């Protein structure tokens, strides 16, 4: 479904992604793990054309999308849930969700949009309770649900999730991961998940990639990456001592 080849992305002089290649098959949940500054967020930003790549190829459903602007990417079916949620705080929950369907209003899909809104409320009953409330007054977990809900309003085929567990209590994280799993099962949504919480992400994902200082150093089945000691040491926070004693 998605295929990246030799992506190089820069922030000014900083070479953030070095020759990165990656792919996702339809219906797959793939996680991208790595330390802070490894280039995980840069990769998502490159995909959604917020920070376009300087070189390399991006193919989505067989079509080259490397030079398209962000709105076209959304239209093609790639939705990005950014790091730190980035909800529109002064707007109501429902307005936030409707903005997620912004591109669809032009196409007179009003009835379908209403139905999707219902679907989001089924998925996250908490959002229905707070539909009139200002987004800025929601808890961190609720804001994350709102950010995911907003992305789903564009009816994505591929969902890009940037650190959805950041700053959330373990129980809330569990709930959000359950929703991701349900989305794949029920709607066949393909997910590219960037996570700090490597252990939880690898438990959820089918496959994973490990980025290190802008370079891809591992690709593999998620359960096997969990067994990789380099992954354990660097990204699962296991102490050297613990590994020695095992």
């Amino acid at each position, binding site marked *: 479904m998605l295929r990246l*080849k030799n992506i190089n992305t820069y922030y000014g002089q900083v070479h953030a992604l070095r*020759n990165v290649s*990656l792919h996702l098959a339809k219906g797959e949940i793939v996680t991208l793990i790595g330390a802070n500054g490894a280039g995980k967020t840069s990769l998502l930003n490159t995909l959604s054309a917020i920070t376009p790549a300087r070189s390399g190829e991006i193919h989505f459903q067989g079509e080259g999308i490397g030079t398209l602007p962000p709105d076209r990417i959304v239209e093609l079916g790639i939705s990005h849930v950014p790091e730190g949620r980035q909800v529109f705080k002064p707007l109501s929950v429902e307005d936030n969700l409707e903005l997620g369907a912004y591109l669809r209003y032009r196409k007179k899909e009003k009835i379908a949009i209403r139905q999707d809104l219902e679907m989001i409320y089924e998925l996250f009953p908490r959002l229905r309770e707070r539909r009139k409330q200002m987004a800025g007054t929601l808890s961190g977990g609720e804001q994350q649900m709102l950010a995911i809900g907003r992305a789903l309003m564009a009816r994505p085929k591929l969902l890009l999730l940037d650190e959805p567990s950041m700053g959330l209590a373990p129980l809330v994280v569990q709930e959000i991961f359950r929703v991701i799993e349900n989305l794949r099962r029920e709607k066949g949504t393909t997910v590219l998940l960037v996570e700090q919480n490597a252990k939880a992400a690898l438990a959820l994902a089918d496959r994973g990639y490990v980025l290190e200082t802008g370079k891809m150093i591992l690709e593999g089945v998620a359960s096997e990456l969990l*067994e990789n000691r380099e992954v354990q040491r660097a990204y699962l926070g296991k102490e050297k001592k613990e590994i020695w004693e095992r």
Partner: protein
Amino acid sequence: MSRIWDVEHECMPREELEQLQLERLQATLNRAYKNVTCYRNKFKELGILPEDIHSLAELTKLPFTTKDDLRLNYPYGMFAVPLREVVRIHASSGTTGKATVVGYTKNDIKTWSNLVARFMTAAGVTHDDVVQITFGYGLFTGAFGLHYGAETIGASVIPTSSGNTDKQIAIMQDYRSTVLVGTPSYALTIADRMEQVGIDPKTLALRVGLFGGEPWSEAMRREIESRLFISATDNYGLSEIIGPGVAGDCSYKDGMHLAEDTFLAEIIDPESCRVLPPGSVGELVLTTLTKEALPLIRYRTRDITSLDYSPCPCGRTTVRMKKTMGRSDDMLIIKGVNVFPSQIEEVLFAIEGCRPHYQIVVDKKGAMDLLEVDIEVTENIFFDEMKRQRRFLEMVEKKLTSTLGVGATVRLVEPGRIPRHEGKAVRVVDKRQKG
């Protein structure tokens, strides 16, 4: 028709396979460059970085790795992970010099087991089979590789290890072994022994043979199949790369399917080191794509073969490698003609009554190269009459000369005269370099 163990990877559309290969190649290069001093130095010498590789075609920019690199970095110098992450150490048999040491992480062992499960399944082995493993359990990778593969499939493993042919046969009879694992020459040793003691192979439960560890010919396959009443399949691997599991026959036995999602294969001219077009005969060069403990870039296997990219009726999309024709080090240049021991083998087996045990001796008389083939005598080719004996030798010599393009002298020697090395017969003795 037999099942396919890993449909996703064995039947991948070419385009998807190439994307996966590129991703894994790039990750392997990054890890090897970061963690292996030898590779960092090789890259620096060529003035390249891992990120200079943008496509599979650019593989040719990369340096080769040879057995000498492994020897120079003996024992652990080429490992890409600290030793505490290595759960297994094996060593090559050292048939051609000092041994080389290889290591596996937990994941490498898992990968290995599944690769062996692939070719065992392709050969027709299932969880209902009883697998007798006659490779020696030890530093050599053969026994353990097949052992893990069989267990992964869920078959019953009998780890008889090597030697004691009578006991092997007794176990085969009593335990109702259905699969025989070993070297092809050992399969013939078993057949010979059964013949000697009057055991009818038809009374055994044996149905599949998985043979590897040495090059063998199609004629030898036919001989094993007709004498043991089994389907004799070939598989290929080398300890430096992972052990058995690199490639194996499917039910069509028309080339071994190479695990291309795990290894990248090239064929080069062993003299000029240039990559040859698909289908050419040359030396196989392999790059590991998933190995954690010992990633190898463009490893020169020294094995001579060719790759067939045409589709196989079995449904697997992976490239098929032909039976190895011998080793590039074994390639003999006799009177300016390239001669592979396997060609001599083909001729010998085509002649009825000739057994697999033979040795090729090359010597020099003045400036002239001399090619001599010693054959261990058997009842079939032992004649009371000197005249018939001589006629037989002349016939073999004539056939050899016409196949090889150079003349050869054939000698008959007593049974057991030709030395065996860890179950592998020593096929070639080249006396020209010495003294």
